[in-house]
Each structure stands twice: as C-alpha cells, then as structure tokens.
C-alpha cells in the first residue's frame, strides 16, 4: 500500500492509496471545508463517493482506528498499560426528558453508580467539570468517565429513570 498525496490548486489536498487487493481509496480535503471519500473497486470504472463534514470524517476515522466500541453514543476506552493495565472508559449520553430538570446531586450519580460527569455539551457551549448543583436539560450531551461496570450501572439506574 502506497499513499500518494497531491495538492490540487483551487481544490485542496488529495490522498490516494491502493489496497493490496487492488481497490483504490481517495480522500479529498476540499477548500470548502468538506471531505469527500471515493472508493473504486478493482476492475470497476466509476467510483462511489461520500461527502462528509469534518465532524463526520473524524467519526469515520475513529471507527477505522477502532476507538469506537458502540454505535449509538460514543465511547472511548483508554488503557494505560504501564499502570497495571488500568482501563478507563469515557462515554457520552444524551439526556432524556425523564431526568431533565434534575441536578447531579439529586440523581446521586457518583454514590449510586461510581461514575463522574466530566463535561456537558449544551447547544454550542461546553461546560467542563460541572458542579453538583448543575441542572440537566433535555438534549444535553453528557460525558461520563468510569469503569465499564460503573457505566453499565449508570445506564441502568440513572439514564432509564
């Protein structure tokens, strides 16, 4: 597999490589900010294309590198091999109507499940390390950190209230 990159004037940057089986994949980072991915099967004449926003392209990249485990909400597992194989999972959830209006304290998230809410994304603003008095709203995306078991407990006991 050889990766070829070309800078096309007015268009952007093109990356192209051929797989061992003879299929071709080409990625274009266009100046308009979108990313186009083309795949061309060996022996085929017309490629098929997909256009992505930078966010979607990053998601795809995460899937390809194997960082994403579940499809619906995102989750990343980090393993520190030097620290006795410490594994921490960071997971995102969307707040549903049932727990909207409640605070982190009300829900007793840490005492009941062991996980910690490390960030909340509300519309276009991010709140890092929200205080216990933080009130959730429907549609908030929360980022939760913990062990896999703790996250399962969180899903069972808090999210499905």
């Amino acid at each position, binding site marked *: 597999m050889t990766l070829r990159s070309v800078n096309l004037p007015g268009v952007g940057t093109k990356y192209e490589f051929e797989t061992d089986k003879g299929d071709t994949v080409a990625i274009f980072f266009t100046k308009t900010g979108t990313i186009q991915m083309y795949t061309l099967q060996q022996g085929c004449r017309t490629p098929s294309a997909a*256009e992505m926003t930078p966010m979607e392209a990053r998601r795809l990249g995460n899937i390809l590198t194997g960082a994403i485990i579940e499809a619906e909400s995102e989750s990343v597992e980090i393993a520190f091999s030097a620290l006795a194989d410490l594994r921490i999972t960071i997971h995102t959830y969307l707040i549903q109507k049932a727990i909207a209006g409640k605070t982190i304290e009300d829900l007793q998230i840490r005492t009941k499940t062991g996980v910690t809410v490390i960030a909340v994304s509300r519309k276009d603003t991010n709140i890092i390390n929200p205080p216990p008095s933080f009130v959730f709203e429907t549609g908030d995306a929360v980022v939760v950190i913990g062990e896999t078991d703790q996250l399962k407990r969180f899903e069972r006991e808090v999210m499905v209230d």
Partner: protein
Amino acid sequence: MEGIVLALFVCLVLAIITKYLSIPPIPFYIIGGVLLGKSGFALVTSDEISRFFSQMGLIFLLFFMGLELKLERIASNRSAVLTSGVIDLNVNMLIGFVAAYMFGFSIIESLVIASAFYISSTAMAITSLIENRKLMMREAETVIWLMVFEDLVLIIFLAVISAGGQNPLIFLLKIAGVLAILYAIAHYGKEFLISLLDRSDELPILFTFGAVLTTASVSMYLGVPETMMVIALGAALATTDPDAFEQHARPFKDVFLVVFFVFFGITINLAGGVNVVMILSISLLAVVSKFISGLLTGIFIHESALAGIEIWGNTIGRGEFSIALAALYGSPIIATIIAAMVIVTSLVGAFTGKYCTGLRKWMAMPGRRAPHHPHTGR
C-alpha cells in the same frame, strides 16, 4: 448608496436560491443587474461608490488568482499541463477570434472577445467537480490543471494588452522593478509576515486589505497595470502563508465580487439595439468550441474521446474572468456579448456538469458506435 443596498439585497436572495438549487450564481447576478439597471427597470445606477466597490471586486479576484499561482507546481507537471493547455488555447482562441472578426469587430476587439471566449470559469469548473463528486476521475486533474494554465494565459494577456501605447522597454522595467520589490518584501519579511498573520486581532485582515489596496494604488501612480500587480502581490505573498491570506481576503473578495457582477449587469446598455443572431451564435459557438478542444484533449491526454466529454462538460462555463476582461477592455457592445455568453455557457455548463458522465456512459454502451473508440495501444 440606496442603489448598492438594493442591488446587494437582490444578490442575497439570488445567492440563496442558486445555492439551494446548486447552480452557478454568477449568471443570475448579471441578469439581476440587467433588470435593476438602465436596460431594465432603471432602479439602480452606478455611482462613485459602486464603481469603487466593483474595482475592489476585480482586484481581489485577481489577488486570489495570484495566491493560487504556484509556479513550481506547474513546472513539476509541465508536460500534461502544456499539452492540454495549448490545445485549449489554440482551439478556443482561434474559433473565438475568427467568429468575432467575421462579425465585423476590429482586431483588438476580436482579441478581447476571443480571450473572454477562451477562458473558462475556474470557480465553476471546480465547484462542478466537487459538487458532482468527480474529483477522483482522471479527467478531474486534467480540468484542474487546465484552469491553472488558463490563468497563466490571462496574466500574459493582461500584460500584453495593458502595455499598449507605452514604450515596451520602460514598461517592462517598471514591472520588473515592482515585482522585485514585492518578492523582496515577501522573502525578507517572511518571518514578520507569518507572525503578523498568526495574530487573532484585527491586524491580519487589516494588513491583507491594506497590502492589496496599496499595491493597486501605487501601481496606478507608477503607470503599471494594477491588475498585473495585485496578481504579482498574490504570487509573492503565496510564498509566505497563502492559506492565511486566502482566509483573510476571502470576505472582501466574496462581497466586492458580487457587487462587481451585479453592477456589470447594471451598466449593460441594450438601448443601442442588440444583434440577437450574433449574440446567440457566439454563445452557442462557445459551447461547441469547448467540445472540440475537450475531445482533442481527451484523445491526446487520456487516449479516449469519451474522456473529452467529461472535460467538456466541466469547462463550458465562462464566468468571472470573462466578465473581468469585458469590464476592463470591452466596449458596451462587447460587454453585452460577453455577458450573454457567460449567462448561456454557465447555465449549459451547470447542466452538462451534472449529466455528462451519463452521456459518456450512454455513448460507451456496447452496440453503440462511439464517435471515436478509445485507443487500446499499449
């Protein structure tokens, strides 16, 4: 002043509609201008302010062209760029020139028409390739380099035509002098420029605007064509951080260029009567002549006439550079012809950009004789 506001508002509505339908907006800005101007409802007339804005649009268009101009990259791709570029230049210039000359224009006028006839719209070609998802096709790269070549020809053309009347030696010396200064500034001030562009306050954008305006006015004062000089400024600054300059100059270009297009339409004067036959035949010829050059390029570069259909489909649209030539050197009649040609070719081009791949497939279907079979010589 109210005129500009009204014109800009009309353009905004047109931009929203054309983006929604994904068709090129330039022909609609011009049509909008014609309707607003003295040939239409006479709602807007050009004044001192609109002329200044239009001038800015032209200057920023050319500055952008300079930023994109990377001579070392052209040099590394020389043979492919040259072959397709020379075919495109000869076929279209010749057909455009002969047609204009036969309709009774003088040699200089015919040359202006032929240049506008020859030069495809880079913006439309690239948008067509991106929006119709054709970037991976082999022909796409040919089209992109063709646009770069056309830009180079335009620069040479601007240099030649604006030298007219002056002592060529003094003219060349003046140009060389300004060029040397620009490149020296870019070369020795590189570190400073890059640190300036890195700032997050108003400095980078102020500097970009100021540099373009200063270059334009200094070259006017020296009697050197400002069109050439802003291209040179772009090319010189491209050796520092072209992406940052593009980012800072884009808002100016986007707004002023729209003003430029709509006021080009507004100043079009149809009162002298128009020769519809002549206008239509030149517009249609513009579509046909790119077909011929496309086929030849397909045969010479991709060894397939069918590849030429793809090249043709994406390069039909004439646009910003044709209008620029008309605004710079055209008489009212020439401006009308070029405006009509831009409108016809860009609309046809939007259509062929979408459907030429289908046309090509249909022509390549087994059992149908294609006009030329791809050469299979290995």
